[in-house]
């Protein structure tokens, strides 16, 4: 029983070890920042011409495709702090549960009318327990709003794939542990712009892909 368990474990780890070796790294050409970055970690959602994006611009690079959903997914959080959503842009895999803790001294009422996920958490205070949470079970872009603070915007990008990464402000990204095969690599830049490139992944190979 113990041996069998160990064996299962090694079998299950084996692909992981193999996968870790396959890497895509590169750079996404981001739109110019409208203002010099002051706080590296503080992003906000801005709209320009009806397009939602982060400021400073960031991109989400992910390997598109159909992958088996894991039994459990890590719990994610979008915090409301100083009347903003932190992080402003959160990529998650379908099925991920996201908590929305209120760290402000005021009420918030997080809701979304986005087709990917409609929900309304109602008004709640920081001491609300359990922390209001939503499971995002449909891929797509979800716009987060607060019914009380109309300027607040947050984005949750719900993806089918577990292989995704956010770029830095310079546009650099690195995806590790990828499975071998033919895939499409996509870079989400804003709500209207997603770039894609076909990739051929081989084991233990580091692929360099730039999105111009």
């Amino acid at each position, binding site marked *: 029983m113990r041996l069998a368990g160990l064996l299962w474990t090694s079998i299950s780890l084996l692909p992981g070890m193999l996968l870790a070796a396959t890497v895509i790294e590169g750079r996404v050409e981001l739109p110019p920042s409208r203002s010099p970055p002051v706080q590296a970690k503080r992003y906000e959602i801005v*709209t320009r*011409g*009806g*397009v*939602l994006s982060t400021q400073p611009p960031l991109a989400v690079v992910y390997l598109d495709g159909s992958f088996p959903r894991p039994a459990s997914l890590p719990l994610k959080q979008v915090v409301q702090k100083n009347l903003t959503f932190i992080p402003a842009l959160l990529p998650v895999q379908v099925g991920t549960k996201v908590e929305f803790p209120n760290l402000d001294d005021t009420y918030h009422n997080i*809701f*979304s*009318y*986005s*087709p990917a996920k*409609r929900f309304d958490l109602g008004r709640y205070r920081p001491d609300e327990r359990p922390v209001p949470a939503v499971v995002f079970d449909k891929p797509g872009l979800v*716009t987060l*709003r*607060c*019914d*009380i*603070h*109309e*300027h607040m915007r947050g984005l949750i990008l719900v993806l089918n794939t577990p292989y995704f990464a956010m770029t830095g402000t310079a546009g650099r990204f690195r995806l590790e542990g990828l499975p071998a095969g033919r895939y499409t690599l996509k870079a989400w830049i804003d709500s209207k712009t997603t770039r894609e490139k076909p990739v051929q992944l081989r084991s233990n190979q580091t692929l360099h892909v730039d999105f111009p």
Partner: protein
Amino acid sequence: MSLPGPMRNKGVAGFRVRLFAVMMVIVATLTTLGLYLAQRRVAADAERNLQQIFQSELASLHKLEELRHAALADRCDVLAAKPRIHAAIEDDALDLLYPSAKDELRDLMESEEPPPERPAQWLHARFYRFLDSRGRVIQPPNPRDVGELDPKSEEQLALRSLPETHQIGYLLENGGTIDELIAVPIFSTETGDIISALVIGFKPLELADKRTGMKSGIWVNGRLHLPSLSQSAQASLNRRIANAVAGGERGENNFRLQLEGAPHLVFYKRLNPQSLFPPAYEICVYPLAPWTAQLRRLQWQIAGAGTLLLLGGFFASHLAAVRLSAPVKKLALDSEENREKRERAEAALASTAQELERSARYSADASHQLKSPVTVLRVGLESLLAREDFQPEVYEQLSALLQQTRRLTGVIDDLLLLSRMDAGHLKIESASVNLSEIVDEWLDDLSALPDSPEVEIEKQLPPALFVAGEKRYTSLIIQNLLENARKYNRPGGRIRLRARAAGGEVVLCIGNTGRAIPCGENIFERFHHSATPSAASGHGIGLNLARELARLHGGDIRLVCSENDWTEFEVRLPAANGAAPAA
């Protein structure tokens, strides 16, 4: 020539009537003019007053309406900014639009009807709709939640395009209710574009004023909503407003209209200038009946005052006419009397003048007729005296005859002179005459007369005393007086002559002793003869002639006294100017 009494009275009465008529015309004209001006002034004042009242009332009502619109717009702006409504439109969740809005507009929709005394502050929505990006109405899934509207009315909420600002409109539903519409744009928080519009229908403010009886309504899309008026009145008012609006009459305006048999003043004002909704006008109808009644009352008062004024004027004119015509009447009477007197005097004067002329002509003729034979007689007598073959007593008789003839000549000369004076033909050629000299000459002559009685002559004369006059007539005056003084003297009597200058005149007094002239005798009368016969009597011309001559010279002769054996005459003659030219 003179008018008979009744006619004269008639003339005065006519004058009085004319005077009265003229005064009445003036009084009536002034009164009428005054009344006309007063009435016009009163009417103009009243109308201005009325207009001011109406205008200020309208202004305050419009202020109220503006406040209400601002409040409504504010409220709608807040609604339009609601995140759920934005989310529903922006995030393509139109199915959630009306359900989301239902929550947001719940208080507006479910609040109770406003109490009548506070309609302006109360915001109660009857319905609401959203417009899509092309201005069309987004159909609500459940009309009951958003206020039901018939499809035709709902269509009227649509706009040609989405508005950029608040739009005010009015909707007259088929049921006859009127709604006030406010459309507010919904801006995308993401792009800033106008993505939708929210149209909310409110119960409009009912403007009515019990104080002035004003009724208000709304005219929109060619239809009038003023339910307090009768159908026929609404129809006629509707036509009139349509004309006024179509005529392009700008801004707030007014007109008069007969409604339900009474005059009304109608104000109309565009409620939603520059709105995307159809133009709507506020119609305020003021009844003018109270005002016209007041004006009529004022006019009656003025007319009453005018009548009183006219009556007062009538009596005043009458009194004035009587008072003014009284002196005229007196004047007319007086002048009538004067005229009669004058005419009588003129007639008398004319006859006197005629007689005088006749007598003057007669005496002149007589003098001439007499003078020639006397001259012949005298010349004959003188030639007889020149002969030497007569008896001495014949000479004596001839001499007496000649003496009488000469006297006759003197009388005739006197008569001739008198007649010339009477006829006004005698002219004095004035010169400076030495009176003393003349007196002296005549005194010499007097003493030389043959039949002169013995009289003593007392003379107190300055050596030179000049008078202004013609020498021969002055001399004649002195001669006459001196002759009388001698003639009427008594034997052994006395003649006294005194002369002096007194204030521009020379006064010569000639007195003589002798019988006094009886009292009452007019000795200056022509052809006067003393009542008491006397040996020494003249022909009665001398004194008259002397006085006439003295008067002709600007002087006079008068009897100073005649009593106690003393008779004295005084001659006054004008003194010659300055010193004597020649002594």
